[in-house]
Every structure is written in structure tokens, then in C-alpha cells.
């Protein structure tokens, strides 16, 4: 489908500027509330602000301290990578598998689908309490399974410095996989019949059909999933705070909680701003190329 160009020149009356006019409020809003605020944060990161903002330039001292004298920062960065990659991978895998299963003309599909989707409806303040209990070594799963007779069962991930981050992944996947499921289910339903019928007539086996035809045509869904899941991963603040408060120690600290702690709780606003900028730039470095390649492709779709 080729792109249509606006047929009327800009000077051709209201029709010409109407689209721009419609977008204008959003344009202003994004300029101010997204990019303006990012610029503000960037400026603050170059000052010596402690409790509240002050605007005196102080160079890149904060960044230097961040990278050379703050071991906790490296833990946070590593956690973000571990968490994000596992979270996105598991959500997509689980969502895709469940979508394929649900697509098998299953009875009570609506019932199952509702069950998989509902976690997304709840805020983590709501379910964090429940997950904390379930994962608690003394009160939760471990106690239950031992009660059932397996007296040597241990499940102490939540309180183990090395394993705690994986509990965060677990709870996060639980909450978001259903949404990915819905996306893939919608995507599956939208695939054109004829291609599949043709492949079946050709004698292609089911796995091959899935691998060669269906999954590639779900590419836009992968894009949307990655966007939304990345958004959730970066934002995962409520989740970490409620589940582990960044602990044990600071083993599950993430850049979002790091920034919050330093900027707001420790009176080191500029330092927190620097960490926020680094976090943001790192995300941009990954997302922009991906968005570019995908959107460029769909323009010619």
C-alpha cells in the first residue's frame, strides 16, 4: 500500500492545517511533559542539588561518582538486564504458548482467557501482599508443601540474595503474561486463512506451519509486546518495592528504585537525576533502533 501524499498544498485552506491543528495539543503536551521534563532532569543532574532543586551548574561530578564510587548502582543495572530479558522472554513465551493452546477451539475459552487476563487488572499494591506471603519462607509455599508431607522442601528464593531477583521475575510474569496472551490471540485470529490452507494442502506439518508462516506473520504483535513489556519492566517500581523493598540488602535494587531512594529519601537529588538520565539513555539506545527498523518496515506494508 503506497503512502498517499496530502493532495492539497499547505496554503490550500483549513484542510491543510487541520491535521496539524488536531495534533497540536498533544505536540505541546509531549514537548513539555516528556521532553521538557527530561531536559529538566538532565539539567538537575549537572547541579549539586540535595534536598530540593537548585540550578547552579556543577559539572559531571554526579556521573563520575555514580560510576566509580557506588557499588549499588552496578547491582541495579545488572538487575535491570536480568529482569528485563527474563521478563520479556517469559511473558512472550508463556503468552504465545497459551494463545496457541487457547486457539485450539477449546471449550470455555472465555473462561480461561479471563483467568489469564485478570492479573493485569490488579495493581501491585494489591497483589504484592499476596505474593509476599506465598513466597515467604516461613508462612508461604514452603510451609504449605511441608504441611502436605514433603518435609524437606525448601523455597527460600525471596530471601536469598542471589535468587531474589527471580522471584520478582516470577511475580511480574504472572501479572503481565495474560496481556501478551491477548495480543497474540488477537494476532492469531487475524491471520489469513488461505495461506494456511494452502500450506496444509501442500502437506506441511503443523509445527512447520506455525514456525514458518504463523509466527513470522505475528511480527507486529511481537513489536507491540516488546514495547509494552519494556515499558512495564522499566517502570517496575511498585512491584519491587512491595515484594522485596530492594532486598535482601539491596540485591533486588533496580535503577527505578535506586533513583527514587537517592533522589527522594537520601537528599541527593542531583545524584538521583544522574542515575535517571543514564537509565533513560540506556533504554533509548535499545528502543530507538528497534522502533526505527519496525516502523520503517510497516510504512511500506
Amino acid at each position, binding site marked *: 500500500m503506497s503512502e498517499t501524499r496530502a493532495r492539497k498544498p499547505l496554503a490550500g485552506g483549513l484542510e491543510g492545517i487541520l491535521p496539524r491543528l488536531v495534533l497540536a495539543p498533544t505536540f505541546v503536551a509531549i514537548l513539555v511533559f516528556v521532553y521538557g521534563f527530561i531536559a529538566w532532569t538532565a539539567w538537575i543532574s549537572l547541579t549539586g542539588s*540535595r*534536598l*530540593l*532543586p537548585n540550578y547552579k551548574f556543577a559539572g559531571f561530578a554526579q556521573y563520575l*561518582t555514580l560510576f566509580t*564510587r*557506588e*557499588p*549499588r548502582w552496578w547491582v541495579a543495572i545488572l538487575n535491570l538486564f536480568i529482569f528485563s530479558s527474563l521478563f520479556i522472554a517469559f511473558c512472550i513465551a508463556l503468552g504465545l504458548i497459551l494463545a496457541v493452546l487457547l486457539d485450539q477451539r477449546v471449550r470455555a475459552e472465555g473462561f480461561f482467557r479471563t483467568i489469564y487476563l485478570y492479573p493485569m487488572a490488579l495493581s501491585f499494591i494489591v497483589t504484592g501482599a499476596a505474593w*509476599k506471603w506465598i513466597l*515467604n*519462607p*516461613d508462612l508461604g509455599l514452603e510451609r504449605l508443601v511441608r504441611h502436605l508431607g514433603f518435609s524437606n522442601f525448601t523455597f*527460600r528464593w*525471596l*530471601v*536469598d*540474595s542471589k535468587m531474589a531477583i527471580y522471584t520478582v521475575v516470577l511475580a511480574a510474569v504472572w501479572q503481565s503474561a495474560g496481556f501478551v496472551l491477548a495480543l497474540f490471540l488477537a494476532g492469531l485470529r487475524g491471520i489469513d486463512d488461505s495461506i494456511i490452507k494452502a500450506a496444509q494442502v501442500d502437506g506441511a506439518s503443523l509445527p512447520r506451519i506455525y514456525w514458518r508462516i504463523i509466527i513470522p506473520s505475528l511480527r507486529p504483535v511481537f513489536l507491540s509486546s516488546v514495547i509494552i513489556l519494556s515499558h512495564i519492566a522499566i517502570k517496575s517500581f511498585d512491584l519491587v*518495592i512491595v515484594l*522485596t*523493598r530492594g*532486598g*535482601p*540488602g*539491596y*540485591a533486588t535494587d533496580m535503577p527505578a528504585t535506586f533513583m*527514587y*531512594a*537517592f533522589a*527522594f*529519601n*537520601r*537528599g*541527593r537529588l542531583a545524584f538521583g537525576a544522574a542515575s535517571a538520565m543514564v537509565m533513560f539513555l540506556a533504554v533509548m539506545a535499545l528502543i530507538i533502533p528497534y522502533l526505527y527498523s519496525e516502523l520503517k518496515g510497516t510504512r511500506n506494508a
Partner: protein
Amino acid sequence: MKRLLIAVLLLGLLAFSATAGEVEVLHWWTSGGEAAAVGVLKQLLEKEGHTWVDFAVAGGGGDNAMTVLKSRAVAGNPPTAAQVKGPQIQLWGDEGVLTNLDDVAKAEKWDSLLPKVVADVMKYQSHYVAVPVNVHRINWMWVNPAVFKKAGANIPTTWAEFETAAKKIQAAGFIPVGWGGQPWQEATVFETIVAGEGGTAFYKQTMIDADPEALNSTTMVKVLETLRMVKNFADPGAPGRDWNLATAMVIKGEAAMQFMGDWAKGEFIAAGKKPNVDYVAAAAPGTAKQFLFNIDSFIMFKVKNAENVKAQKAMARLILQPEFQKVFNVNKGSIPVRMGMDPKLFDIPAQLSMKDFAASSKSGDLVPSMAHEMAVMPAIRGAIMDVVTNFINSDMSARDAAEQMANAVQAAM
């Protein structure tokens, strides 16, 4: 007759409203007992004709509340009063947003009612900007004597004695220490050991002055090793545990002792336990003469409306007056910060605490708690706590930890 009544009522209302101001108060006392305690102040203020607008924000021991406070200050409309304590008060003073309470202080003679150590925290550049509400003592040890008896152990008065007693308790099948694995609780035990093993002078050098040399000293290494020794007597389920659940372990007789501030008393009382019968409140080993204090306070912001200024000053005055001091502290389990109150109004552990408060004030052993944000700037406290919690939750060596502590503090300054 009816008309006269109405007229009088109207006049009364007018008179009332002429003095009626409003205070908006930001705090995080949201649990039953605390809320009741703050509710008393609300009632007292309302009796004088002012209105109390409550703005409670729970979570993280004030973390969320502080974020909200900062954003409101940045937006240009801070509340009338906010629950802020310790050196943070100085940071707020630096921003120029706090009001001057010297007139109330002079009229009520605050300088003579508060120990100098405490009054200094409430002042910014020698002017009162905050009002203290209560005093908590941090270095308590809560003991279940029945467990000790069964194990044949003695309640320790030094950390060396602690180790002996703990081994006996463990051998008898009990958990020696009820431990809650959260950074602030770990820091609480840490500073108790700093005071108990290092002494008051060392405590001042490390926890108040944050002198890097003192932090990276052999004394600190010894303190950290003791900390690890104590931690090893906790049960595996400790990480992440809330403090009141650890207290419950002592109450139930599963654990022998807990190192926690005086608010643990509330749990024993709620469980119907009697002091010196079912439980013993003793000073943590080595800290009998020392009083590590945590004082809750309200900072007062500059307010524009004249009526609200009156209400604000009324609130400040009421907080340090005997009636509120008595009711609040009885409800919350702390002791009054106003000196010279009648001890008999409070229960036995509180009376002991009040005596120690006055005595340590005279002897110079009344020191602010680092773990509870009374001693150093939040940035430095954060740095120290990061190292402590990391040390406890990993197998880092004490020597490395001491060095890291000194480095972290310097990076945070």
C-alpha cells in the same frame, strides 16, 4: 428567647471563626495506636477552635511521605506541619521554607524543658523551627526470661556474655535472637553494638561525625565481627521479616531476645504480658548507661494566612504541653520529651527509661540514633546502611566492610 439564643450562637460562631485557623499535617502514623495518639492532638486543637486537615501517607517509615513533601514544597504550597526528624530539619532550613517558633518557645520556656542535645536538633541557626513530640530509646533488649531459664542461661550484660548465653539457648533448641532482616532493623542492631562495644566516644566519632578514619578502624572491624556473630544466632526465616513478627517470636517463647527500640513494648502489652514477669526489658549488652534516642518531631512551614499562623503556633504550643505529652506517650509507648513530668503517670519500663533519659543527658551518654535518622544526613546514613545490609546478607569480610563504609561515606558527602 429563641431569637436571643440564635443571636448568641451567631456571635459565638463569629467569635470562633475569627480565631479559627487550619493546620494541614503530613504524617505517617497510620496504624491503630499511633493514629489514636495523633488523634489526641487533633482533638486538643479542635477544642481551641482550629481545624485539623489530615494528610497521612504510609509506607517505608516515611519514605513516601517525604517524597510527597518535597513535591509540595517544589510546587510552592507545603503543608502547615510535617513529620520530619533529625538532621533533615537542617536541610529543610537551608531551603528557607521553615517558620520561626521562637515566640512560642520563649512563652513556654522550651529551652528549660528540653535537653540541649534535643533542642539543638529542633533549631536552625539558633531559631526553633520544629517541635519534638516524644522520645524513643533504641538500645533495648527484650527478653523472654522463661526461655533463658529453660536454657540455663543468664541475661547478658556484655556482648561476650551474649555469645555464651546464645550458645546455651541454641543448644536447648530455641532461637537465640528474634531477627527482622530489613535494613533499618539491621542498622539498629549495628549501632547498638557500636555503642556497646565501642563506647560513647567511638559512637560519636563514627555515627555522628562519620569520620572515615574511625569508620575504617580496628574497633569497627571488631564491631562488625560481633554483628555477624549475633546475626548467626538468628533463624533462616529472618530476611524481610517485619519487626513486630520478630517480637512475636519472643512473646511466644520461640526466641529468647530481640534488640529493638521501646515501641516493642506495645506488642507485649497487646499480648497481655506483664513486665518482669513474662518479659524483661533490659539495656542492650554494654549500653546500660547509654541512651540512643529517636525523637519524632514536626517541622513548621512558613504559612501565609494569619489565621493559619495562629493555628500553627497553637499546635506547636499544645505538643509540648503536659496534657498532650502524657496522653500521646502513654498511647504510643514512648516517653515524654518534656522533662520534669511525673513518672507515675507512666508504666514501669517507661519510668526506667525516663530516669535513664535524664541521667544520660547529664553524663553525656545521650546520643542520637543513626539508624533512626537522628545522627547524620540522610545521604551518609544511606551509605552506611547500604554497607551494613550488604555485609550482613553476603559473606563480605569485616575488614572489607569497614573500608567500604569509609569510602561510601566519603562519596556521599
